[in-house]
């Protein structure tokens, strides 16, 4: 008799009706958005502050090269000793004192430039200072060596390499970054999903054990059915939560940015920043154009199908293991030693994905890891935007399914024995023994 739909329905409804689930579903996007808004707001506050930097230039050559910006204003001091200048800077509460000594030769500039301040200066300001001084000194150096600065400027050449694959499809730098982000996001999403809802499955198995209802249930249904029902029901609840998060998050983001006048979409998403770097300020049209070209360059249909298949495969693979852990232990505190070995390959997958796929999406390491079933869902999803041959995708998927069937069999064995075992924390050795029961 097939009780699977009944079990799925119960698991889903109890999860969804659970008070803490409801609270989490509606509260977390609000908290999340509130945090983003707060950060955006605070960083804008910070940005508005003008830092005044006193400059004591003994050489008299550098200070006119320092250009004030909206963040930094330079105040030149003259005819003061270093000690007097320090005292003055302290009194006027300027951000710091830049001290430039005279020098004899451009080869001996170490220790000639110093910065004094109450607290350590921010990285942004420091690198801004260094940049400005460096370019001024470079110009001075060029002049001294009788090289025309304008000639050097004129002869500077910038180039944009046009990327095109052998089939004649044009891509660009922006596309590459977008692909990275797309792959990274899907891989990371899967990772989060497994951890959150895997744990939920584990807890629900433990609950059945501690409330001692399990023997009543499995006198009516096969343990495997119960396990699968739990996994599917919990996943559906998870998807529901995710969808609500995305919709609610989107709506809230829009509302908050309208109300507070803060552009949340622009201020903190790394996509946008990378796009800006890539486009180097080519205007609004460029955004639209590059968006279209990204859509064109991503293998969209392939991506969607692969996403669904690998997501389901990877999720089921891990969640069956979580269910087995839940069955093997009596309470949540005992789960740690078993959860670690599951998390390891998952974390490995994310790191391998991030570091090697950026380096070379079709290199040996990333290719191999996109076949290994415990890492393939994450790594393959990260690789696919860069174009993975169909046979590789299929092979990876077949390996994943084969392993999934094995883990479900394995988990079902542990589950079948474990749910009826009370009172002692099993060792790995005992778990192996259970498989033979």
């Amino acid at each position, binding site marked *: *008799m097939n009780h699977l739909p*009944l079990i799925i329905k119960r698991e889903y409804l109890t999860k969804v009706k659970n008070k803490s689930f409801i609270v989490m579903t509606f509260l977390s996007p609000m908290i999340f958005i509130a945090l983003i808004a707060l950060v955006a707001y605070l960083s804008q506050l910070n940005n508005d502050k003008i830092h005044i930097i006193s400059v004591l230039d003994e050489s008299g050559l550098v200070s006119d090269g320092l250009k004030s910006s909206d963040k930094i204003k330079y105040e030149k001091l003259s005819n003061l000793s270093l000690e007097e200048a320090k005292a003055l800077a302290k009194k006027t509460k300027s951000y710091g004192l830049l001290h430039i000594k005279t020098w004899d030769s451009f080869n001996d500039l170490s220790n000639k430039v110093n910065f004094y301040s109450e607290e350590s200066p921010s990285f942004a300001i420091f690198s801004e200072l260094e940049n400005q001084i460096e370019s001024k000194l470079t110009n001075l150096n060029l002049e001294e060596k009788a090289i025309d600065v304008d000639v050097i400027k004129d002869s500077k050449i910038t180039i944009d390499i046009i990327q095109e694959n052998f089939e004649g499809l044009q891509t660009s730098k922006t596309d590459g970054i977008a692909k990275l982000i797309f792959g990274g996001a899907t891989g990371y999403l899967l990772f989060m999903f497994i951890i959150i809802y895997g744990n939920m499955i584990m807890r629900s198995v433990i609950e*059945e054990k501690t*409330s001692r209802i399990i*023997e009543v*249930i499995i*006198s*009516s249904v096969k343990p495997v059915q119960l396990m699968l029902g739990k996994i599917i029901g919990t996943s559906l609840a998870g998807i529901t939560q995710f969808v609500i998060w995305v919709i609610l998050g989107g709506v809230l983001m829009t509302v908050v940015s309208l109300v507070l006048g803060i552009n949340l979409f622009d201020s903190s998403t790394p996509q946008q920043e990378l796009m800006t770097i890539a486009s180097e300020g080519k205007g609004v049209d460029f955004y639209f154009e590059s968006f279209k070209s990204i859509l064109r360059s991503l293998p969209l249909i392939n991506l969607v199908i692969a996403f669904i298949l690998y997501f389901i495969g990877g999720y089921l693979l891990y969640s069956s293991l979580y269910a087995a852990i839940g069955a093997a232990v009596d309470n949540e505190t005992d789960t740690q030693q078993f959860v670690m070995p599951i998390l390891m390959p998952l974390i490995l997958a994310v790191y391998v994905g991030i570091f090697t796929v950026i380096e070379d999406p079709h290199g040996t390491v990333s290719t191999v890891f996109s076949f290994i079933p415990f890492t393939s869902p994450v790594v393959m999803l990260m690789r696919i935007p860069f174009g993975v041959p169909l046979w590789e995708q299929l092979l990876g998927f077949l390996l994943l399914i084969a392993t999934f069937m094995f883990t479900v069999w394995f988990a079902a064995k542990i589950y079948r024995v474990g749910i009826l075992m*009370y009172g002692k924390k099993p060792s790995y050795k005992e778990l192996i023994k259970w498989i033979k*029961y």
Partner: protein
Amino acid sequence: MNNLLEVKAVSKHFGTYKALNRVSITVPQGSIFGLLGPNGAGKTTLIRVINQITMPDEGQVFLGGEALKNRHITDIGYLPEERGLYKSMKVGEQALYLAQLKGLSKSEAKIRLRYWFERLEIGDWWNKKIQELSKGMAQKIQFVVTVLHQPKLLIFDEPFSGFDPINANLIKEEILRLRDEGATVIFSTHRMESVEELCDDIALINKSNKILEGKLLDVKRQFKSNTYEVGLKTNNRGLLQNHLAEKFEVTQANFKTLGDELKLNIKIPNGESPNMLLEYLVGLGEVSHFVELIPSVNDIFIQTIKNNT
């Protein structure tokens, strides 16, 4: 009489540990069958084999003459010793869910649940959560869920634990009524007085082996020792006792009477009639008490287990 359940030479190992060693039992249709044994003897494993929770290594189980199959799950109602309910689920929802798992349709399950809830006077619990109920209340719901799908075979493991005497009695009455309506009951407990009261047949399992099985009365007959409790009014106790000891095995007895008579357990030789003893006693004094000593299930249990070790 037909046998509803036949367990034939079932063995089960857990690793190197043998939980059941070629155990066979036969449960007649319409009887209450007591499954007895000390803790850890293998009773629960046997019950789990019958419920298809555990698969036996060897041997077979037949229900109504057929080898046990998946669909027989609906023919069995099982109340495990380790039992509980979903704590945060409402009573009604939960009972409906469990009934549907046993193959009842939702509407049918509802009708039957209403009937049972009314019968046990728990109708107003429908919308309560289990965590709001006392242990005894939850046990009642568990009992209802076990019998709701009208299974041919009911298996109760310690059904009375957690009940007060009134509710225990109520449940006992219900079990007897279900038996009278045609259900067969397997009853596992350590409470010997309820075995005495309820069971038609018993089996005793010790250390993974079945060591005794049969009709309760037959077993008792088998264990009786032809011993009689005798109360005798006499003036000369010492003399009388010596006199008796020459002819029979005599021990001091302990039972309650109103007078101050001599109380003895007297065993008569096999093949002799109790009338012989009675005639003999009448000649010695006034007989105030003469009862055959019937071994209790408790005695049988303890004696058998002791002899077996």
